[in-house]
C-alpha cells in the first residue's frame, strides 16, 4: 500500500519520454477515445502542475499557464496502460470543496456523481500543507484516491524533501512523487492508480479531525443517513455537507440520487456510463 518514489535518472528538459523504457506500457490516446474501461479524475489546487500531469499522460498539449484559475473548463483525454484504456478528466483547480464557487461545484459534482474509478489529487510538494487541505476533503468523499506529489524538482531546488513513505502511511492512501514536466514518477503513478482500481492496493483514508461538538453531531447524523441510503461509502461526508447546508446534497438526499449512488457502488464500472453529460447538465 505504501509507495515511494523510485526516481528515474533525470531526463533532460524537453526530452521526449515516450521512448523511455519505463513508459513502454503507456500508449497515449489523446482525445481519440470512443470507449474506455476506467475513469480517472485529476483534482488539485491551482498551479500544482495538474495540466502537466494531464498532458504527460495523454500526450495532449493543453496550455499550461501559471495563474490561479487558468483552467476554466474541464479537459478530457485518454491513455492505455497495461492493456486497460483509461479516460482521464482534468478538473478545474480548486483550493477546497467547501466554498461553492462555480469551479468547486464542477469538481465536487464530478467527484461525487461522476463515478470516477479513481481520483488523483495532484499536490504541490513545495506547499504540501495547503494542498493536503483539499486532499483530506476528497478523502472524506472516496477511498479510491491516489495522491500525486508533483513538482518534486521545484521542491529539491528549494531544499524541501518529502518523505512519501511516511506520508502514505499517515494518510492511508498511496502517495507518489512526480515531476510531470519530465515524466519522472509517472509510471509509478499509473501503477498506483491501477492498483487502487483493481483492489491490489487497499486504501484506508485517514478521517479529518473536527471539534468535539461537530463530532457529536456527526455521530448522530451518520446512522440516520446510512439508514436512508444504505451502503453509502461516504455517509460521514454527506453529514458534513448537510450540517453545512449544501443545497445540492440536500436535493440528492431527497430525490434519492444518493441512494442510487450507493447501489451503483457495488456494480463494476460501466464503460458506457452516461455520467459526464448529466453532471454538467445538473449545474
Amino acid at each position, binding site marked *: 500500500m505504501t509507495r515511494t518514489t523510485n526516481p528515474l535518472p533525470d531526463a533532460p*528538459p*524537453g526530452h521526449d519520454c515516450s521512448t523511455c523504457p519505463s513508459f513502454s506500457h503507456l500508449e497515449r490516446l489523446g482525445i481519440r477515445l470512443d470507449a474506455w474501461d476506467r475513469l480517472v479524475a485529476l483534482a488539485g489546487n*491551482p*498551479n500544482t502542475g495538474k495540466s502537466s500531469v494531464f498532458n504527460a499522460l495523454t500526450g495532449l*498539449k493543453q*496550455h*499550461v*499557464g*501559471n*495563474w*490561479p*484559475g487558468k483552467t*476554466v473548463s474541464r479537459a478530457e483525454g485518454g491513455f492505455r496502460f497495461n492493456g486497460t484504456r483509461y479516460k482521464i478528466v482534468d478538473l478545474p483547480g480548486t483550493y*477546497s470543496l*467547501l466554498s461553492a*464557487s*462555480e469551479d468547486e461545484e464542477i469538481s465536487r459534482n464530478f467527484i461525487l456523481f461522476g463515478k470516477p474509478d479513481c481520483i488523483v489529487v495532484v499536490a504541490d510538494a*513545495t506547499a*504540501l*500543507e495547503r494542498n*493536503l*487541505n483539499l*486532499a*483530506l*476533503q476528497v478523502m472524506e468523499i472516496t477511498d479510491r484516491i491516489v495522491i500525486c506529489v508533483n513538482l518534486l524538482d*521545484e521542491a529539491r*531546488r*528549494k*531544499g*524541501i*524533501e*518529502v*518523505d*512519501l513513505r*511516511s*506520508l502514505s502511511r*499517515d*494518510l492511508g492512501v498511496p502517495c507518489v512523487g512526480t515531476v510531470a514536466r519530465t515524466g519522472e514518477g509517472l509510471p509509478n503513478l499509473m501503477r498506483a492508480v491501477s492498483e487502487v482500481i483493481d483492489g491490489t492496493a487497499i486504501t484506508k483514508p485517514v478521517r*479529518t*479531525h*473536527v*471539534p468535539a*461538538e*461537530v463530532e457529536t*453531531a456527526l455521530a*448522530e*447524523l451518520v*446512522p*440516520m443517513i446510512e*439508514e*436512508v441510503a444504505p451502503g453509502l461509502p461516504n455517509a460521514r461526508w454527506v*453529514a*458534513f455537507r*448537510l*450540517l*453545512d*447546508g449544501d443545497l445540492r446534497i*440536500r436535493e440528492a*438526499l*431527497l430525490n434519492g440520487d444518493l441512494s442510487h449512488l450507493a447501489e451503483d457502488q457495488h456494480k463494476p464500472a460501466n464503460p458506457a456510463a452516461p455520467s459526464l453529460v448529466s453532471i454538467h447538465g445538473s449545474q
Partner: protein
Amino acid sequence: MQTAHHPVTPEEVLARADALRRTFRTSFRDQVVEGIYSQAQTLADRSVSRDHGKKWDLDQRIDRIVTSPWWGLPIMMALLTGVLWVTIVGANFFSDLLFSALFKVEDWGVSAFNALSAPWWLTGFVWHGVYRGLAWVVSVMLPPMAIFFPIFTILEDLGYLPRIAFNLDWMFRKVGAHGKQSLTMAMGFGCNAAGVVATRIIDSPRERLIAILTNNFVPCNGRWPTLIMLATIFVAAQFPPMVASLAAAGTLLGVVLIGILFTFITSAVLTRTLLKGAASAFSLELPPYRRPSILRTLYTSLIDRTLFVLMRAMATAAPAGAVIWLLANVKLGGQSLAAWGVEGLNPFGHALGLDGAVLLAYIVAIPANEIVVPTLMMIYAKTGMMMDENGYEAIRHLLVDQNGWTLLTAVSLMLFSLLHNPCGTTILTIWKETKSMRWTLLGTFIPLGIAFAVCFAVANIARLFGAAG
C-alpha cells in the same frame, strides 16, 4: 437519537441537520476548516523536511523587486515596451518577406488564369477578390501574432501575471473593480473572447460584469497588426531609422495606456451608474515562479492560438474580399457600389477624422473587425492595381500618396481600432457568459459609442489646431 420505531425519512435527516447546525457555538464552516488545516499542518510537519541551510527564497527576492514600491510599475512598463518592440522589429522583417512572396503568387495565378483564357470576372473574383483578401490578412497579421503570442505566453507561464494583478489591484479598487480584472485584460491581449471567458475567476458578479464590458479596451491579437502597421508607417517614419522601431513601440505603449485609461474610466462610470456597489474582497495567491518549457510554449502559442486566430481572420477575410470585389465591380448609374458607399459615408467618416472607405471596410468586416485594415486595403487597391514596393512601403504608398492619409487619419484609425465594438466572436461569448441580451448589447455599444465620441473629439480638436486631414 430519534425514535427507532419507524424508518428514518430523508426529510427527518435534513430537519435534524438544520437543528444541529444551530446548536454550534461558532460557525460550522470555520470550525471544520480550522480542524482540517491543523491536521494538514501536522501531517505535513511529519513528512516534509526543509534544508534550512539552503537559501531558497529566490522567488521572494524576485517578488520583492517586481512588486516593490519603486520598481514594480516601471518594470511592468519596461516589460510591455520590450515585448512590443521585439514584436515590431520582427514583424517588419517577416511582413516584407511574406508580402512579396504572396503577391508573386497572385501574379502567377492571374497569368495562369489568363493563359487558360478564363473569363475576366472569374480571374478578378478569385485572385483580386478572395485570394487578395487572404494574402493581405496573412502578411499583415501573421508575423506580429507569431511573435507576440509566444513571448506573452512565456511571461504567463513564468507566473508574472498574478504579480500584475497584485500591483494594480489598488487602482482597480478605486474604480470599484477587482485586481483580477488585470488578469482578464492580459488574456484579452491575446483574444478578447478568451479574456471574457477568463472573467470567471472574478467571484463577484458585479465586478465580473465590469471586467466583461471593458475587456474590449485592450487591443487583442487581431488588432495588434493594424496598430503596429499604423505606428510603423506614420510615426516611426518620422524618426531616424536608428530609433524608428523604438518610436513605434512607444506609440503602441501609448495606445495600450489609452485603452487602460478607458478601462478605468468606463469601470468607474459603471460602478457609479449601472453597476453600483463597492469593491469586494481581494485575496489572490501569488504562485511560485516556474521555468517555462520553451518548446511547448512555442508549440501551443503557435498552433493553438496564432493559427486559430489567423484561420478565423482568413475565414472572414476571404468572403470579405469577395464582397469588396463585387462592390467594386458591380456598377450602378456609372459608378461602382463601393464608390457609392464610400461617397455616402465620407462626410461621416470625415467628422471622425477618417474617411468613407474606412467606415465601409468597417461595415463589411463587422463579423471579425480585426480585418478592417486588410479590407480597407482591398477597397483602396481595387482591381488590377500594381504593387511595386514590398510590405509596409507599399501600404504607405497606397495610403498616403494615393489616398491622402495624414497623421490625423492614422491616429483616428488607431483610436477607432482600439475602442470600437468587440468582434462577433467576443459578442457571442459575452452573451454565453452573461446570458443576458442587455449586457451583450451594452458590451457592444458602450465601446462603439466611446469610439465615435473620442474620434470625433480628437479630429475636431486637431483640426482646430490646424492639423491636416
